[in-house]
């Protein structure tokens, strides 16, 4: 193992970590407002990738505007899905809300994946690069697409943080996540923020899908692993903590990259990458049962 290989793995790990963070931060946002884990989030990410692909290939739109179109489309689709499938969560008549959320989002994941196989076909598709070519940093070679995905991911995450901490809507979202009752009595419509959180989460996943597509290609089952990774990251970051999931996402991507670099048998290293993520989770949970940035009280109702 050379130092160059290590650096390349570290750079790749950072980019993947940012993409993970982009997906996981949406799961966290949805969890903190709707109080369910969205197990279909990876499939929204898949749809986002395909959406960008078809906007590029069918309408000849450049990749970056196509990513924004895809984000807007997934924002809308997610709100429709939330209205259709998740409204029983807000009814007092539904007794087992956690179980309902689990089953419905799992079902939605299978549905979207299989619809994708029918609609897009089982073979991998690859959209054109955002910026083609590579950058040399000494012996280190990084493709422009990876650099672009990493930077665009960071910009989107910073935009989200700005929105959450510096705008009225962000404050209202925070208020709803802390107490729906109290939010309602100060005139905030909590139902509107259920839709909004689900939509924003899906739009960020769509951006992640569009950014990763030129690097790894698109496939209908590309959301399966991110579903698990996002869940790992959300727990790792402390369920409900936006900043925690961003840091945990980048840390997980990075540690997976380095694990692959350090693993003694390079032919098997890639196959074990995902197991490594879960191993990290187990170790963290032994020492910090609430995750890295967890609060003791998940729910303030």
């Amino acid at each position, binding site marked *: 193992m050379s130092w160059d290989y290590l650096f390349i793995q570290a750079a790749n790990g950072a980019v993947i970590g940012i993409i993970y963070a982009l997906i996981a931060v949406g799961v966290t946002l949805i969890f903190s407002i709707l109080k369910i884990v969205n197990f279909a989030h990876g499939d929204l990410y898949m749809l986002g990738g395909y959406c960008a692909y078809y906007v590029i290939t069918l309408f000849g739109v450049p990749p970056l505007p196509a990513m924004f179109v895809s984000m807007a489309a997934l924002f809308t689709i997610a709100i429709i899905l939330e209205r259709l499938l998740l409204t029983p969560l807000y009814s007092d008549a539904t007794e087992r809300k956690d179980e309902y959320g689990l089953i419905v989002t799992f079902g939605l994941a299978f549905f979207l994946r299989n619809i994708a196989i029918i609609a897009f076909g089982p073979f991998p598709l690859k959209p054109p690069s955002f910026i083609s070519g590579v950058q040399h940093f000494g012996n280190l070679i990084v493709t422009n697409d990876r650099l672009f995905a990493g930077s665009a991911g960071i910009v989107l995450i910073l935009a989200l943080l700005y929105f959450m901490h510096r705008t*009225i809507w962000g*404050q*209202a979202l*925070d*208020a709803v996540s*802390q*107490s729906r*009752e*109290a*939010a*309602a*009595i*100060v*005139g*905030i*419509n*909590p*139902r509107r923020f259920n839709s909004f959180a689900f939509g924003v989460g899906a739009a960020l996943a769509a951006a992640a899908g569009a950014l990763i597509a030129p690097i790894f290609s698109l496939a209908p089952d590309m959301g399966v692993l991110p579903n698990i990774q996002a869940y790992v990251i959300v727990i790792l970051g402390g369920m409900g903590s936006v900043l925690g999931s961003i840091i945990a996402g980048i840390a997980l991507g990075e540690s997976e990259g380095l694990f692959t670099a350090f693993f003694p048998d390079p032919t098997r290293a890639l196959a074990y990458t995902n197991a490594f993520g879960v191993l990290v989770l187990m170790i963290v949970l032994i020492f910090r049962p609430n995750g890295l940035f967890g*609060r003791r009280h998940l729910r*303030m109702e």
Partner: protein
Amino acid sequence: MSENGILIEGSRVTKRFGGITANDGVDFAVAEGDLVGLIGPNGSGKTTLINVLTGHLTPDGGKVILRGRQVSGKPAHIYAATGVARTFQSTQLFGRMTVLENLMVPGLTRPRSSAHEVARRARACLEFLNLAHLEQLYAKNLSGGQQKLLELGRCLMLDPAILFLDEPFAGVHPHLRDELIKRIEELHRAGRTFVVVDHDMESILRISRRLVVMARGRKIADGPPEAVRTDQAVLAAYAGL
């Protein structure tokens, strides 16, 4: 505003939970500028009535009329936007926000509000409640009594026509309770309408202009405090008869 100055009215309000009828055809009207005390033994349906009148519960029978418009069945945030504010028996603050932010949120969600103006109002409100020195503290770190004061402040930021206070004096230190009573009286003199639910008879009798007594889901007395406190039915209800 409807004629005869009625601000909010619950008419034949009925609410059942499983086999229990928490409110059984209760008529309850509050006139503009009134300060109504609502008392009754545990389980008599006071909080249920407030929950119905503030939109947190939909009545099974009867209706709620706010300024002449029927509002029962509408969600709670519509009530809030129409001038109905409330506090909860166990305070419902935004625990992970600072004291100031707790007041900023209701201010900013009003239409046509500017952050600068809302911050100025929030600070004035904290002055009024003697909480100004705690501005940067997280709400969850306040004492129980201070949380009740802050919840009152959050109501005021909505500039409401009527405030429902659910057990504002419960578990509050006597010194802070006097403070709270003083603030309620000042606000009342300035023209705000109040409905106050509490078990603390002494405080309720001190402030209310009108006293309503509930027992077993029904209203059993309604009138000036001096008359109600000697009412035989009320004495019987409190003695558990």
